């Protein structure tokens, strides 16, 4: 089949048509998938919250700026009836081995940690990825950890946290993220009455 002649007009027209068709197609697919993508992200978030706070029947969310770090943290206050049973904080650290690690930290109203679950990371498989609950029970040591009386740093830095073997950087970063959540929690949430302000 003969190709179209490469005149300037033809070239511009062809590229224009292709690009316009492509953009329209993509816009439609984008609209179709917008809903499911948002639903998938929301489901993941809800899942993480459920994992780190005691049973609740309603959530109230609020954002707070931490003392260090550019981005705000999302606080999810979990209520059972009128009683605050826990706060799930979406935190982050930029000191991971491969960039940002995001995690959900659950606090009891008095500031003790309920549990920590990772949300997103790019750490090394087999080493840093042990922060994942499914890959190892390393993160279980944060259950009932009380940052008021214990130090949220790896043992090497004088703290009470056991680092992952051969993944000190990841462990250190994870602690930094949890510490960020704790400090913001203390600064913004009244304890020990457990009432949100």
């Amino acid at each position: 089949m003969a190709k179209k002649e490469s005149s300037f007009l033809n070239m511009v027209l062809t590229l224009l048509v292709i690009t316009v068709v492509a953009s329209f197609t993509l816009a439609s697919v984008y609209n179709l998938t917008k809903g499911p993508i948002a639903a998938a992200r929301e489901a993941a978030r809800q899942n993480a919250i459920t994992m780190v706070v005691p049973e609740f029947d309603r959530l109230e969310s609020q954002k707070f700026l931490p003392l260090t770090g550019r981005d705000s943290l999302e606080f999810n206050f979990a209520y059972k009836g009128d009683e605050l049973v826990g706060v799930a904080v979406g935190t982050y650290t930029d000191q991971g081995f491969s960039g940002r690690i995001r995690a959900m930290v659950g606090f009891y109203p008095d500031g003790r940690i309920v549990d920590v679950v990772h949300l997103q990371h790019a750490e090394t498989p087999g080493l840093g990825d042990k922060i994942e609950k499914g890959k190892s029970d390393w993160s279980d040591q944060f259950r009932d950890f009380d940052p008021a009386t214990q130090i949220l740093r790896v043992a090497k830095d004088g703290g009470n946290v056991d680092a992952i073997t051969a993944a000190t950087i990841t462990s250190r970063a994870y602690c930094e993220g949890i510490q960020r959540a704790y400090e913001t929690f203390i600064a913004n949430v009244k304890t020990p009455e457990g009432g949100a302000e």
Partner: protein
Amino acid sequence: MSQLKNFTKGFIKENPVFVLLLGLCPALGVTTSAFNGLGMGLATTFVLVSSNVVVSLIKSQIPDKVRIPSFIVIIASFVTIVQLVMEAFMPDLFAALGLFIPLIVVNCLVLGRAEAFASKKNLVSSLVDGLGMGLGFAFALTLLGAVRELLGSGAIFGFSFIQGDGMLVFVLAPGAFIGLGYLIALTNMIKKNE
């Protein structure tokens, strides 16, 4: 070339990864497990088949000087579709493949087939070529992923054989290079004995 030969050449004789050495970046980057390799392979196959079909259909309408940019826009569109659909319906795989999904657009395999094959052959041949090459690519990635997962984590498709870790080096960067190197040597041996 019969369509059957057209289809099967992608598996051993002209395997994109082991013989043509195309698409090495994702081959090395996502094959930490057999499942990831398979997922990436199938996503790439979708893009390859779709772009081959479209290019073959409109090839007479594309002026010669702008064919590469045109192919690129077409391929990039299908890659974006894969990105969006995956994020919506397969979020775990999407998170595992990460950066390498948009990188399908620069997978030399896809652009290479559009340029070398689809822009010259008819619709059916282009479709079959895309399917064969894509599945050959998926086969290569799944195989490399399986080797790395078996040696590195003592598991296959998520089923663990052993407690604890395997030879970790295989799920890390060096293992990817070395694993691929030996698989290519193996393919060379097989081809020689054919």
